[in-house]
C-alpha cells in the first residue's frame, strides 16, 4: 500500500502545475471564457508538444502509453486551472478508436491525437436528451457506399472546435444496434454551434444531408456497444480527475478567503457557520479524490472496475457541484464577481455534471449491479 505519487507522476504534476501558473493563470482564463472559441490554441499546442494528449496512446502511434493514474494526475492539474479546451474530449475519442478502430483508422487518427494535430470528440445525446445507448435514435439512410445523415446531436462537448466527431447512430432495430461514424467536420452538411449560457464547451451539431462514407464506420457495424462502453468507462475517471482538480482550487480559494476577509473584527474563518461550509467542501473534495484515484488504480492493475468507476463519477460530479456551492457560501458577494474567478469553477461544475452521465445515471447503473456484485475480498 502506497498512496503517494510515483516520481514520474510527481514530475508530470509539477510540469502541468508550472504550465498552468505560467500560461493559464486565472486572469487569462477569465478572458478566454468570453471568447467565441472558449479555449486557447496555444495551450492546446503546448499540451500536444508535451505529450499530454498521447499518454494513453500506444508508442507505435507516437504516444507514451503511460498508465491511467499518470493521465489522471495530468487531468487533475489541468482541472485546477481550470484550463479549458478539448483535452478530455480528444483523449476520450482516442480511447474509443483504440478500442474499436481497424489498423488503418488507428494509424490515421491515433497518431494525430498523440501529436496534438487532431481535435476530436464524441457525439452521443440528442434533442430528446438522455445519456446512454437508449438516447441514440439518429438513423442514417443508406445510399450505395455512403450513409446520408439528417438530424441533430445535442450537447456535444467541443463539437464547435473538433476536426473529428465520432457520431453514434442507430443502424438496426435491436436495442444495442448502434454504430459509430468517424465524421470529419469539414464534410458538407455538418455544422456545429457552440451553446452559450452557463455552459463550458457544449455544442449543437447539425447534419443536413451530410454524406458519410461507410468506410468511416468505426470497427464493425452494429456490434460495438461493449467496446464503446469499455472505452467510455476507462475514460470516465480522467474526467473525474479534472473535476477533482477544480474542487481542490475551490477549496484553496475558500480557505484563503476565510483568512483574508475580516468582518466583525476577525477573519471570517473563525465563525463556525463559515467553517462548516469549508468542512463540507473538503469532504466532497476528498470523497471525489479517493474514489477517483482508486478507480484509476483498479484500471492500472487490471481489477474489476465497473462499480468503482460509476461510484467515482457519481461522487465526483455531485462533489464538484456542491464544492462550488459551499465555496459561494463562503465568498458571498465576492464570489460572483467575474474577475475573482470562482465562477470559472462553478460553470465547469455545472457543465461537467452532465458529461458522461449525471450522478443519477451512474447511481442507477450501480443499483443494477447489486444483484450480482462481487465484493473485493483479496
Amino acid at each position, binding site marked *: *500500500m502506497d498512496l503517494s505519487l510515483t516520481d514520474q507522476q510527481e514530475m508530470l504534476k509539477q510540469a502541468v502545475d508550472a504550465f498552468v501558473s505560467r500560461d493559464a493563470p486565472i486572469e487569462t482564463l477569465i478572458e478566454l471564457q468570453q471568447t467565441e472559441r472558449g479555449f486557447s490554441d496555444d495551450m492546446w499546442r503546448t499540451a500536444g508538444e508535451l505529450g499530454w494528449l498521447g499518454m494513453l496512446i500506444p508508442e507505435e502511434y507516437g504516444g507514451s502509453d503511460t498508465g491511467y493514474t499518470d493521465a489522471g494526475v495530468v487531468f487533475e492539474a489541468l482541472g485546477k486551472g481550470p484550463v479549458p479546451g478539448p483535452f478530455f474530449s480528444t483523449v476520450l475519442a482516442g480511447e474509443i478508436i483504440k478500442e474499436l478502430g481497424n489498423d488503418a483508422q488507428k494509424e490515421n487518427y491515433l497518431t494525430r491525437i498523440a501529436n496534438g494535430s487532431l481535435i476530436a470528440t464524441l457525439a452521443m445525446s440528442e434533442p430528446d436528451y438522455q445519456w446512454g445507448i437508449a438516447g441514440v435514435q439518429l438513423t442514417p439512410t443508406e445510399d450505395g457506399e455512403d450513409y446520408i445523415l439528417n438530424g441533430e446531436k445535442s450537447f456535444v462537448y467541443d463539437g464547435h472546435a473538433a476536426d473529428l466527431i465520432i457520431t453514434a447512430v442507430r443502424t438496426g432495430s435491436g436495442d444495442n444496434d448502434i454504430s459509430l461514424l468517424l465524421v470529419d467536420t469539414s464534410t458538407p452538411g455538418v455544422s456545429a454551434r457552440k451553446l452559450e449560457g452557463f455552459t463550458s464547451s457544449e455544442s449543437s451539431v447539425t447534419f443536413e444531408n451530410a454524406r458519410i462514407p461507410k468506410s468511416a464506420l468505426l470497427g464493425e457495424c452494429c456490434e460495438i456497444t461493449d467496446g464503446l462502453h469499455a472505452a467510455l468507462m476507462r475514460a470516465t475517471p480522467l474526467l473525474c480527475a479534472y473535476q477533482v482538480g477544480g474542487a481542490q482550487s475551490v477549496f484553496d480559494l475558500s480557505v484563503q478567503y476565510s*483568512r483574508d476577509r475580516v468582518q466583525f473584527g476577525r477573519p471570517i474563518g473563525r465563525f463556525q457557520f*463559515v467553517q462548516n461550509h469549508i468542512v463540507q467542501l473538503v469532504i466532497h473534495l476528498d*470523497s471525489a479524490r*479517493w474514489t477517483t484515484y482508486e478507480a484509476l488504480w483498479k484500471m492500472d492493475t487490471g481489477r474489476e472496475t465497473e462499480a468503482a468507476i460509476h*461510484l467515482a463519477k457519481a461522487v465526483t460530479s455531485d462533489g464538484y457541484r456542491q464544492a462550488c456551492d459551499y465555496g459561494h457560501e463562503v465568498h458571498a458577494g465576492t464570489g460572483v464577481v467575474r474577475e475573482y474567478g470562482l465562477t470559472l469553477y462553478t460553470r465547469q461544475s455545472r457543465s461537467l455534471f452532465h458529461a458522461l452521465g449525471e450522478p443519477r445515471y451512474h447511481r442507477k447503473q450501480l443499483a443494477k449491479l447489486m444483484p450480482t456484485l462481487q465484493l473485493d475480498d483479496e
Partner: protein
Amino acid sequence: MDFAPSYTPEQEAFRKEVRSWLDDHAPVIEGDQDSPENYAKFRQLGRDLGQQGWLRPTAPVEFGGGGMGFEETVVLYEEMSRRDLSIPPYYDSGGWLGGASILVWGSDEQKQALLPPIFKGDVVTWQLLTGPEAGSDLAGTQTDAVRDGDDYIVNGEKIYVGGSNGVDMLWTLTRTDPDGERHKNLSWFMIPADLPGITIRPMDLLGDGGEGVGSGVKNTVYFDNVRVPAERLVGGENNGWQVATTHLELEHGAGGSVARNLWFSRALEWARERRLNGRPLVEDSDAQDRLVEIYEKTEIQRLFGIRNFWMNRTHQAMTYEGPQSSYFRKLSGLDITTALHELFGPYALTNDEITDFSEGALDAYQRSAIVALHPGGTADVQKVLMARRIGMGRSEAERYKAGKTVE
C-alpha cells in the same frame, strides 16, 4: 499509487505465516461477543499475539512491540480484519491511546514498567477523560490530583468509561493545579484499578459503545481519596494538555483503518435472501437505490480509513484527516441506519429471537449509530478540529498543529 499491499515475496511469505498462525490461534466465537467466555478467548488471543509482538506491531521491540515496518503491519491488520478481528482483539482504549502517549511522553523507567504489560496483552486499560462537568471541554476536568509526599491523592468522577469484563489499569486525566491557568494545570496518571477508593459502576445507556468487543457497557468510575504513587504521573506535572494532543490525535481517527465495510456486505447479503412480491428484495429498484446509498457511504469511509492508516504508519504530516474521517463515520452511521430502515422495514429494529434474521446486529447498530455520535469527540468537535487544522481564518503560523504520534 497502490490501494492494496504490494505483494512482495517477503509480504507474501509473511501473509502465509500470519494466516497459518491465525488458523491455529484465532478463537471460535459463538453468541454474545461480550460474554465472559468469549471475552476470555479474545484476551487469550491478545496474549498469544503479544508473544509474537503482533499485539502492537509497530511499537519498539524492547517494550514488547513488534518493531515491524509498514509493509508487514498492513498485512497483519488485513489478515486480522479478514476474520473480523481487531488489533487488539478487545476493548483497550487506555492501552492504545495511553500506550501511544507513554511512547512519546513517558520517562525511560515508565516505558519499561508500563508498556510491556500493555503490548504483551497482560493488562487491559481504560481511558478516563469525561466527567459530569467536562465532556467536549476536556480541559475543564475537575478530577483533582493533589500532591502528598511521594503520592498524589485523587478525587473525582469519570463517566462513559471503558467496557465490560473488568479492567486492570486506568489512564486518567486529572487536574493538578485547580488555580492554575486553563490547559496548563492538567496531568495524566496510569492508575491501577485495584487501588483502594476506586469504585466502578455500570451506566445505563441506549446501546453499546459501538467501539468493539468488550465495550458493551460504559461505566462511572469514582475516585475517593485514592492514593497514587507519583511515579505513575506521565509526561510531566501540569503538562497534560500537551500529552493529550498525542492521545486525542489518535482518538480522533488519525490512526485510520484497513478494516472491511461490514454494513454494505451484510445489507447486500440480506437483500439477496429476503423477498418482496415473490422476488428477491435485491431485484427491487428502490431496494437497489438504498443499497447504493449504503455502498457509497461505506466505500468513502473505507477510503478515508486507508488513507489515514497509510499516512499515520508512514509518518506523513497529517492535519485534518483524522477528524475528517471521524466526522464522516459518525454522520454516515445515521445515513446508513436510515437506509437500513427503508430497506428492511421494522426488521431494522428488532432482536427478537424468532423474527430477527440479523443475529441482533440490526437493532444493535440502530442504537450504536446514535451513541457513536459522541465518543472520541462529538461530530461538532471533529468539525472544530478540522477548521483549526486546515487553518480556516488562521495564518499558517497560527494553524493548530496535530498531536505528535508514534504508532
